[in-house]
C-alpha cells in the first residue's frame, strides 16, 4: 500500500510533507502504486487529473518534463496548442532543468501550460499539462528545487502509458481512438491494421461485439456513444482484401523450429486469436477442432443473419492457414486424443479454448432434455447453422411445430427466437423472468426481434415443463414482481402467489446460459476446475498442468467474443514467455493499466464543454417483413460519408499516465 507524500488529484490536495513517513496513512485504494515491478517502488505517479509523489527524492520538474514530452510525441499535430505548445513547453522544461533559464521563467511556463489545457481540441492536449499545473499551483517550491539540477535529478526512470476510457474497457485494449482517427483521414488500411494487431477476426467483431468500449464512451454524456462497432465493421468490410492478400508466411520474421510446436484446442475466438499471435511470433501451430466448421460459438452459436459465415467468419479464420497454421476439424479432445498424446507427439505447449457449449437447464419440474420438442438454445443454434450451411438441403433434426417458446433474455435467446422465425415457425414467444430493462440482450437485438413480430413475456418465471406422451406441450409460469434494489443495484424479483399461467408451445428452447462441458477432461490430464466448473488458471492463464494454458469461455464461463480473443492473445504471450524464458515476464502496459484503475474512480470525466449534438449513424437494415423469412445479413454496412461523420463524433479522450520508478 502506498503512502502519499504530497500530490494533487482532481484539485484535491494531499500534503503529508510535515509528517514522518510512518505516520502517513496508507491508502488501500492506492495499493497498486506501491511497487511497479517487484523490487522497484513507484516514486511518483502522474496522470490526467494531477500527480502523487511517494518518495521525497523525486524531481517533479523532471517528471513533468518527461510527461509533457510524451504529450508532444503523442500529439496528433492538428490543433495548435497541443502540437506547438507541448513542444515549446518540453523545451522550456528541459532548459529549466538544465539551468539554461531560471525560476523567473516559471510564470511563463504556467501560462503556457494553462493555455494548452484550456484551448486544446481533444482530451490529450486538455490533460497534457494537468500534473504540471497542479505542481506549479500547489507545490511550486518542490518544483523549483530541481532547477538547474539536471545532472543529479534529470532523466529519472520513467514509464508512460497512453490510453482512453474506451481502450481501458476493451478486453483486447484496441487503440480505438486511433483507428477512428484513421477513418477520419480515410486511411482505412491503417485503421484495420490497428485492429489486426490485436486479433484477426475484425469483421466478425465489427458485427457481434458487445461493445464494452461504447459503454465507456464519453460521447454518451453529450448525446450517444460513438458507433465504434459500426466503424470497425466499416473498415473491416472496406478492406476485405486484406485477409486474402496481407497474410502469408512472409509476414513472420523469425520462424521457430518444429521442436517448438504448439497445439491449440478449439477453433473458436480464443483459439484462433491464440493461434494467430503464436504464428506471428513464429511458432508452428496446429489447431484441433471438434466440430466440422470453424469459429466455435461465433460459428455455431451466432446465426448467419447476424454473422455471415462463408464470406466473413470463415475467411477470417482462414488467416490462420495463410500464416502456415493447420486446422484439424472433427478432432475432439477426450475422444480423439488426450493431452498426453499431444505432448507425446512433440507439442511443447498447449492452449485450450474449448468454450462453454452445454446449455443450462431450467431446473424445474417436468424438465427432461430427452423430451420431444425440448432443446437447449446452443444446440438449436448449432443445428440451424449447420442446416443453413448445407443451404437448407438437409433435413432439420428437430421437428418444429407452429408455436415455439424461447426461455431466456440474453443474446442467445434473441438469436434462437429470430432464427426460429426464419425456420418458418409461425409464432415465436420469448419468456424472461425479469423486466425488459433488465434483459442482458443488446437493446438493438430486442428491438429487431420485436420488429419481426416476436412476442415477449416479461416477469415470467417457469415452474414446470408440461408434456404429453413425451412431447412438450408448454410451460407453466408464475408471474414475478419487481422488488427492492439489491446491493448490485439490480431490482430483485419475487413470485406473485397464485398467478400461475401456462403458455402452450410445440417447441421449447431453453436459452438461459451455457456451461463448460468438462467431460472432455480425464484425470490423466491433470487439469483442475474451479467452483464454477471452469478450467482453473492463474494470472497468466497457465492451467494447473505445466505448459498448458487456457482461455475464453472454458475459463471465464460463457462470456463474449472480445473477451475470448483477448484471452487468446494473452495466452499466446504467456506461451511465448514460457517457451522462451520458462516463466512469465513483466508486462508494463498491463501493470500501468492496473495502476490507472486505482485512480479511474477518482476521475471526474464529465464533458464540461458544450458540444454540438450529432446523433450516431443509423444503420440500414433489411425490412423486418422481408428479413424474418431469410438468413441474409440484416444490418448493412455504412457508407464512407457516414463513416467520416461518425468518426468525427469521437472526442479523442486520450489520457497520459506515467510513473517515476526507482530504476
Amino acid at each position: 500500500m502506498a503512502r502519499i507524500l504530497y500530490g494533487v488529484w482532481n484539485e484535491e490536495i494531499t500534503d503529508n510533507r510535515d509528517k514522518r513517513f510512518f505516520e502517513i496513512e496508507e491508502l488501500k485504494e492506492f495499493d497498486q502504486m506501491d511497487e511497479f515491478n517487484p523490487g522497484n517502488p513507484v516514486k511518483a505517479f502522474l496522470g490526467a487529473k494531477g500527480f502523487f509523489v511517494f518518495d521525497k527524492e523525486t524531481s517533479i520538474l523532471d517528471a513533468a518534463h518527461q510527461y509533457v514530452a510524451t504529450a508532444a510525441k503523442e500529439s496528433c499535430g492538428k490543433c495548435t496548442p497541443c502540437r506547438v505548445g507541448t513542444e515549446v513547453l518540453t523545451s522550456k522544461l528541459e532548459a529549466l532543468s538544465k539551468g539554461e533559464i531560471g525560476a523567473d521563467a516559471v510564470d511563463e511556463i504556467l501560462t503556457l501550460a494553462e493555455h494548452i489545457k484550456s484551448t486544446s481540441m481533444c482530451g490529450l492536449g486538455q490533460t497534457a499539462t494537468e500534473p504540471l499545473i497542479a505542481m506549479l499551483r500547489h507545490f511550486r517550491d518542490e518544483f523549483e528545487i530541481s532547477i538547474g539540477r539536471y545532472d543529479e535529478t534529470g532523466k529519472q526512470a520513467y514509464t508512460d502509458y497512453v490510453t482512453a476510457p474506451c481502450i481501458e474497457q476493451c478486453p483486447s485494449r484496441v487503440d480505438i481512438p486511433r483507428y477512428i482517427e484513421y477513418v477520419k483521414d480515410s486511411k482505412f488500411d491503417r485503421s484495420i491494421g490497428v485492429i489486426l494487431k490485436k486479433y484477426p477476426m475484425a469483421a466478425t467483431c465489427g458485427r457481434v461485439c458487445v461493445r464494452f468500449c461504447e459503454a465507456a464512451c464519453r460521447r454518451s454524456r453529450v448525446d450517444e456513444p460513438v458507433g465504434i462497432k459500426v466503424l470497425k465493421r466499416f473498415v473491416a468490410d472496406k478492406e476485405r482484401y486484406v485477409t486474402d492478400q496481407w497474410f502469408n508466411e512472409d509476414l513472420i520474421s523469425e520462424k521457430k523450429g518444429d521442436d517448438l510446436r504448439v497445439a491449440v484446442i478449439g477453433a473458436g475466438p480464443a483459439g484462433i486469436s491464440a493461434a494467430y499471435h503464436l504464428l506471428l511470433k513464429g511458432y508452428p501451430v496446429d489447431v484441433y477442432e471438434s466440430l466440422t466448421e470453424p469459429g466455435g460459438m461465433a460459428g455455431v452459436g451466432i446465426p448467419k443473419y447476424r454473422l455471415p459465415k462463408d464470406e466473413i467468419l470463415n475467411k477470417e479464420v482462414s488467416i490462420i492457414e495463410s500464416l502456415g497454421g493447420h486446422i484439424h476439424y472433427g478432432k475432439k479432445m477426450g475422444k480423439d486424443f488426450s493431452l498426453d498424446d499431444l505432448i507425446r507427439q512433440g507439442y511443447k505447449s498447449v492452449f485450450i479454448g474449448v468454450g462453454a457449449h452445454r446449455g443450462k437447464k431450467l431446473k424445474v419440474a417436468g424438465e427432461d432434455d430427452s423430451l420431444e420438442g425440448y432443446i437447449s438454445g446452443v444446440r438449436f443454434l448449432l443445428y440451424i447453422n449447420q442446416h443453413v450451411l448445407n443451404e437448407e438441403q438437409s433435413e432439420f433434426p428437430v421437428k418444429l411445430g407452429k408455436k415455439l417458446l424461447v426461455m431466456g433474455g440474453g443474446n442467445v435467446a434473441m438469436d434462437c427466437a429470430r432464427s426460429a422465425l426464419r425456420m418458418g415457425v409461425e409464432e415465436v414467444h420469448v419468456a424472461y423472468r425479469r423486466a425488459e430493462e433488465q434483459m442482458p440482450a443488446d437493446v438493438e437485438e430486442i428491438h429487431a426481434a420485436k420488429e419481426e413480430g416476436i412476442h415477449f413475456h416479461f416477469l415470467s418465471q417457469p415452474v414446470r415443463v408440461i408434456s404429453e406422451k413425451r412431447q412438450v406441450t408448454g410451460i407453466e409460469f408464475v408471474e414475478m414482481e419487481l422488488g427492492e434494489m439489491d446491493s448490485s443495484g439490480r431490482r430483485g424479483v419475487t413470485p406473485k402467489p397464485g398467478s400461475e399461467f401456462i403458455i402452450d408451445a410445440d417447441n421449447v428452447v431453453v436459452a438461459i446460459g451455457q456451461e463448460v462441458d468438462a467431460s472432455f477432461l480425464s484425470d490423466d490430464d491433470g487439469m483442475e476446475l474451479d467452483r464454477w466448473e471452469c478450467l482453473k488458471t492463474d494470472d497468466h492463464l497457465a492451467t494447473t498442468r505445466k505448459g498448458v494454458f487456457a482461455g475464453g469461455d472454458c475459463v471465464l464461463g460463457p462470456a463474449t467474443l472480445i473477451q475470448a480473443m483477448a484471452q487468446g492473445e494473452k495466452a499466446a504471450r504467456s506461451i511465448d514467455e514460457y517457451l522462451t524464458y520458462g516463466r512469465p515476464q513483466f508486462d508494463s502496459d498491463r501493470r500501468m493499466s492496473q495502476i490507472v484503475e486505482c485512480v479511474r474512480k477518482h476521475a471526474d470525466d464529465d464533458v464540461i464543454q458544450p458540444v454540438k449534438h450529432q446523433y450516431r449513424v443509423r444503420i440500414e437494415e433489411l425490412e423486418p417483413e422481408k428479413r424474418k423469412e431469410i438468413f441474409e445479413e440484416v444490418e448493412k454496412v455504412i457508407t464512407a460519408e457516414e463513416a467520416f461523420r461518425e468518426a468525427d463524433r469521437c472526442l479523442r479522450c486520450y489520457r497520459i499516465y506515467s510513473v517515476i520508478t526507482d530504476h
Partner: protein
Amino acid sequence: MQGTINGKLVEFGENETILQTARRYDMFIPTLCELENLDHTPGTCRVCLVEIKRKGDDFTQIVTSCNTPMEEGNEVQTRSRKVREQQRLQVNLLLTDHEEDCATCVRHGDCELQDVAQFVGLKEARFKYDFSSGRTKDASSPSVVRDMTKCIRCGRCVTICREVQGTDVLFYENKGVNSEIGVRDSDLLNTSDCVSCGQCTLVCPVGALAERDDTEEVIDYLNDPEMFTVVQFAPATRVALGEEFNLKPGSNVEGQMITAFRKLGADVVLDTNFTADVVIMEEGSELLHRVKEGGTLPMLTSCSPGWINYVEKFYPDMVSNLSTTKSPQQCLGAIAKTYLAEKMEIDPAKMRVISIMPCTAKKEEAKRPEFTIGERPEVDVVLTTREFGSLLKREGIWLPDLEEGKFDNPWMGVATGAAEIFGSTGGVMEAAVRTVHYIVKGEELPGVDLKAVRGLEGIREASVDLGELGTVNVAIANSLKSARELVGRVRSGEKEYHFIEVMACPGGCMGGGGQPKHKHNYREFLTARQKAIYDIDASSELRQSHRNPLVKEMYDSYFGEPYSSERSHKYLHTTYWDKKRTVKHTIKEIWDELSEGR
C-alpha cells in the same frame, strides 16, 4: 433559444455555433482555419476563442466559437482580456511552428496568418524554435507546390480534395510538430493520384500549397530578342484577372490584357477563344462521327486537363469515351507552330507559346510528352491568372490603368461568343450544340442559347432534338465529385447519354485552381464571373463557332475537313493512357508504421 454575446441578448437555433450567431449579429471574431462557405470548422487553429459561462456554471471556460454550439442561457464574451491574451498566445504558437519567410512567400501581403496576427494584436513573435525545417517541401509537380514548413494544419485542402473533388489525395500525416498534409500513397505529388486541379491552392490560407511559379521563364522568353513570342489567354482569365487589381469580380479586362502583353513585348497576342472555336469544329464532328458510326458513347469532353488526369487515373477503362480532340490551349500551341508559323514565315523552333490559364493543371498538360512539335512543346510555358497578375505587378503594370487593346492577328485574331462561354461550366456543351445543330439540321439553334445547360449545380442534364439523329441526351458535371456521380449514372446504365461535358473545377474554368483567390472565401464570386462570361457571349457579333471566318479560312487553306483530315488528326487530336495506380500496403508496413507512432 436565447443567450448573450458581450452582454447583448441574442437568439439562435439548435446547434447553431457561437461564431455563426456572432456573425448574424455582426460581431467579429478572428478566425483562421474555418471557411464558412465550405462549412469547414475543423477547430484546429484554436484562434476563434471566446469565453463562455454556461447556464448554471459558476466558472467560465475558453472554447472555440467555430464549433461550439450556443446553448440556452449561455453568456459569451468575445473581447475579454483573457480571450485576447489567449488568442495572441495561440497565434504566437502558430508562428513558432511556421517558417516565417514572409518577404519571399507567394502569399506576401495576402496571407490569412498575417491578418490574424494583426487581428489579435500580436506585437512580437515570442518563441524562437525551429519546428518546421524537417517537414516536406515538394516541388515535384509541374502544377502545385507543397511547402509544409508553412502549413498551419487548417485542413481546408483536405476538405476540398475529399468533399469537393472526391479525389481524397491530401490527408493528414505524421504526428506532433512533424504533422503535415501528406499525399496518399506517395511521397510526392507528381507520383500520386493528384489530378493537378489546384482547388487546394484556392483555399490554403498561407503559402503551403500554391501554383508552381513559372513567371521567370516567361520573362526570359519575352526579353529574348531571338524568340518570337506568341501569347494566348483563356476565356475565364479575362473575367477574373481584374480581381488581382481590386476590380470587382466579373470585370472584363480582355482589352487591358491585350495591351499589357504588348507592353511586355509579346510579338503576337492571341485569344484561346480562337481555338475554342476550332475545338467545337473538331469535337462536334467527332461526336457526329461517333453517333453515326457507332463509336464509343457517351463522348466525354477533353478540354479540362484535371478531368483528363482523373479519367486516366481513376477510370482508365473509360479513356475511349474521351474526345480525342485536344484542348483549346494545346490546339492553339499546335496551330501557332504550324499554320501561323507558315503564314507568318517564322521558324517554329524559335517560337515560344505562352499561355495564361485559369488552371494549374494546364501547366502539366503543356508538359505531356505527346504534345510536342519538333523538339519543343506545343505550349512552352503556362502561367495561371494569379501568376500573370503578379508578373504584371513585378513589371510595374497596373492593369486597370491600361487602354483597351484589340486582337488583330489576321490569321487567328477572331473568336466567337460560343468560345467565350467555354470559361463556364456548361459552355462547351452549349457551344457544341449550337454548331452540331447547324451541321445536322442546316439551320441555327433557335434563339441561339441553350439555357437548360447553364447554371452552377453539380450535374445538369438536357435533351436536344437533332433531327435525323434523333434526341441526344447531354449532361454536364462540374467538380470531380459531381463527375464521379455522373460517371456512376453512366456505368449503372440508369440513363443513356450521348455527350457529357465535365470540368474538373467547380463552376468550370472560371472557378479554376489558377484563378484569383479570396481570403476566407471559396466560390462566392463565381456567379459574377459567370454572368460576365455570358454577357460577353450575348454581346458578341458572332455567336457560333462554325461562323468564325478565320476558322473557316484555316480549314479551307490548311487543315481540310475537321476531324477527318490527316492534318487535323496529326495536330488537333491526341491519345490517352491508363495511369491507374494500385498501391497496396502490406500489413507489415502498416504495423511498422504504427509502432513508429506515425
